[in-house]
């Protein structure tokens, strides 16, 4: 080894040792999320600058709510800065690691517990109580259930857009069927209806009887049909007989329509957000959709004839799930007081009323019907619903009302530290079964094994 090589090796080893030392000496850290929350007086007068990330304020509703909350905090002299880019897991962790921590973040409600389990966000029980807000009465039980773990609430949730089944009455009536035939609690009847509506051309589907939107609604299909996703501690519990039965039912639905591959390739061609969407073109008899989708269809009410039927459990009772968003406060937030008060202001009655006014102004310009704002808060929903006027299109009004009918029937999503991985593993299992690669039993066993490994990783 010559002198130059020796210098390079010595420098590298030195750097390695320095990095190791830095690594182990950083252990004193900032403490855990609970103590960060305990040391904060959330009812104090907020001040300084609030850095908000990922709040979806692109549309009229978002802008109105943002304006309302900004005005509330401005009274205390708080300046709110918005980073409007979408939430991104990699960016979030990188920002936390680098110390560039946002004060309040919007993310999928389903991901909240994953970050809570890592100690990256703080519990907000004190945020609510010190500002005289009771989340158990403010929100639907399913909404708080989505962000509650270990008896603590970890977010300020917003919206609750339940899923139900939109029915194309043109397709249904042409097949001699009624809404009662689209019944997930009666699988033989549903399958018979699907077969009557299904049409193919050249070996490919041209009209589907029922698009179950399977991988996008794994929780609806499992929980709705009596299955289970986690145990009471949040550990995965996927390989149950009830889950196998639900998955088998789903496979029957796709097999009755040319199989998953043909069905999926067909639905991929739908002009989902456009003027030639599947309801305008009568390409589907029934389809699982979230509440926001009628709003997408609202400009085309004259061209479509749709109604809503509920997704029913095995006992015939309406059930629904919703994957919505929530505001969280990172443990290392520099301004948790303003973050808490901003999140509560965005979710307050005043904010939603401002949003309603903005939406009505938009609808007055476009002439589209009001499909409602599903806020996640029963009291607010009731008031906004009372204010809205029917469109005059009886079918479309029924479609909108159908979602209001089920909004209180929600099941909370599984609150697990490995929530993201559980969902991915379930989606893998669904695809694996529907494409015929695995039996429901084998696919769920693999999903359980993979999800459990992820759960053990995140809880170790």
């Amino acid at each position, binding site marked *: 080894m010559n002198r130059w090589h020796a210098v390079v090796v010595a420098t590298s080893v030195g750097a390695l040792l320095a990095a190791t030392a830095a690594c*182990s000496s950083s252990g004193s850290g*900032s403490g855990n999320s609970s103590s960060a929350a305990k040391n904060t007086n959330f009812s104090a007068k907020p001040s300084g600058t609030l850095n908000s990330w990922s709040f979806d304020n692109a549309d009229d509703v978002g802008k109105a709510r943002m304006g309302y909350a900004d005005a509330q905090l401005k009274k205390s002299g708080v300046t709110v800065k918005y980073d409007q880019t979408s939430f991104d897991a990699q960016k979030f962790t990188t920002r936390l690691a680098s110390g560039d921590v946002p004060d309040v973040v919007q993310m999928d409600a389903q991901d909240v517990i994953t970050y809570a389990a890592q100690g990256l966000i703080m519990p907000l029980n004190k945020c609510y109580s010190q500002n005289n807000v009771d989340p158990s009465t403010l929100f639907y039980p399913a909404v708080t259930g989505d962000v509650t773990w270990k008896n603590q609430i970890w977010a300020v949730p917003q919206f609750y857009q339940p899923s139900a089944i939109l029915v194309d009455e043109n397709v249904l009536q042409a097949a001699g069927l009624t809404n009662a035939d689209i019944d997930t609690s009666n699988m033989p009847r549903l399958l018979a209806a699907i077969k009557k509506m299904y049409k193919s051309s050249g070996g490919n589907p041209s009209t589907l009887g029922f698009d179950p939107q*399977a991988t996008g609604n794994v929780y609806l299909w499992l929980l709705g049909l009596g299955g289970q996703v986690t145990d009471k501690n949040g550990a995965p519990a996927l390989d149950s007989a009830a889950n196998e039965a639900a998955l088998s039912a789903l496979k029957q639905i796709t097999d009755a329509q040319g199989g998953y591959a043909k069905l999926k390739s067909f639905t991929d*061609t739908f002009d989902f957000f456009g003027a030639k969407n599947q309801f305008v073109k009568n390409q589907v008899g029934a389809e699982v959709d979230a509440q926001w989708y009628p709003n997408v269809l609202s400009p085309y009410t004259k061209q479509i004839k749709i109604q809503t039927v509920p997704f029913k459990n095995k006992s015939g009772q309406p059930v629904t799930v919703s994957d919505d968003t929530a505001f969280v406060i990172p443990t290392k937030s520099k301004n948790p007081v303003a973050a808490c008060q901003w999140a509560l202001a965005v979710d307050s009655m005043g904010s939603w009323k401002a949003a309603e006014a903005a939406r009505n102004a938009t609808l007055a310009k476009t002439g589209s019907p009001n499909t409602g704002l599903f806020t996640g808060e029963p009291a607010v929903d009731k008031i906004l619903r009372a204010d809205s006027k029917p469109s005059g299109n009886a079918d479309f009004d029924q479609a909108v009302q159908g979602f209001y009918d089920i909004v209180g029937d929600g099941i909370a999503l599984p609150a697990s530290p490995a929530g993201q991985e559980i969902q991915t593993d379930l989606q893998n299992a669904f695809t694996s079964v529907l*494409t015929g*690669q695995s039996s429901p039993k084998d696919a769920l066993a693999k999903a359980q094994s993979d999800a459990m490994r992820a759960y053990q990783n995140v809880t170790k």
Partner: protein
Amino acid sequence: MTQQLTASAEPEDRQRDLARAVKRRKYNRREALAGYAFIAPWAIGFLIFSLGTMIYSLVISFTNYNLATNTAAPVGFANYRGLAQDPLVRQSLENTLFYAVLAVPLEIIFALFLAMLLARVRRGSGVFRTLYYLPKMTPTVATASIFLLLLNGNTGAINRALRAIGISGPQWLIDPNWVKPSIVLMTLWGVSGTMVIFLAALKNVPRDLYEVASIDGAGPVRQFFSITVPMISGAIFFNVIVLTIAAFQVFDQVYLLFWRDNSNASPDSALFYAVYLFEQAFREFNFGFAAAMAWILFLMLLVLTLIQVKVGNRFVYYEGDRS
């Protein structure tokens, strides 16, 4: 007399050789300095931005890193042992290897084919080169959106074209057996970077070599294998190394086509090494394990590249070589 002449000529020859050697050394030094100057921007960037991160990731790979508390508890080789025991690591590696073996040769062949086509264009060559380079400039997300339509098993343009010649196309995005070929197709779309390097190399092949070969009766195929390939072997070698490294790191195409909403083919068949690494780091917060994965990938690529260099040196012709 003869002896006298020889004796007087020897020192002269020696002096001439010495002068040549000094000149060559000077020339070599100048050339080496120029080389260092050219790689200096990269080297400085690497030292400032990458080396520290790499060392830190090596440290992290021997720890259980906790993001919330920014602590790293030493765990020895546990993460590396975990790699050996995790079946998904093996699966992701197999998928990645399969893809690399399929993609790299096809990319080389396709890029060389396009470059040879462009090399023959005389009028409007600038326009054609720009058009052929455009896919490289297109964001991967936009390309993925297009490929989701092109590869649609029922109505996609690729299957329609196959149907026109009597072939029933597969369900590219849903049939697990066609997952990797579909990613290869999308990769081929962005092959224009490789094509440009080949085009530059083809332009440097002396025309008179072809003229002489033609006079000697060599046809186009013989000319291609006996002149073109040896003369651009340096570019081929470079592209093989770069594309192999890229193939082992493939992420965005896979993620966009198969992991966006997990509704296409069973993602087990689309579980690539970089995707699993991402999942471990940012979905499971298993940073130590992910860092170990990254280092194993680095070592694999290092060994593979060294083998390629060793083997490649036997076949590659470097124009500037002096013995």
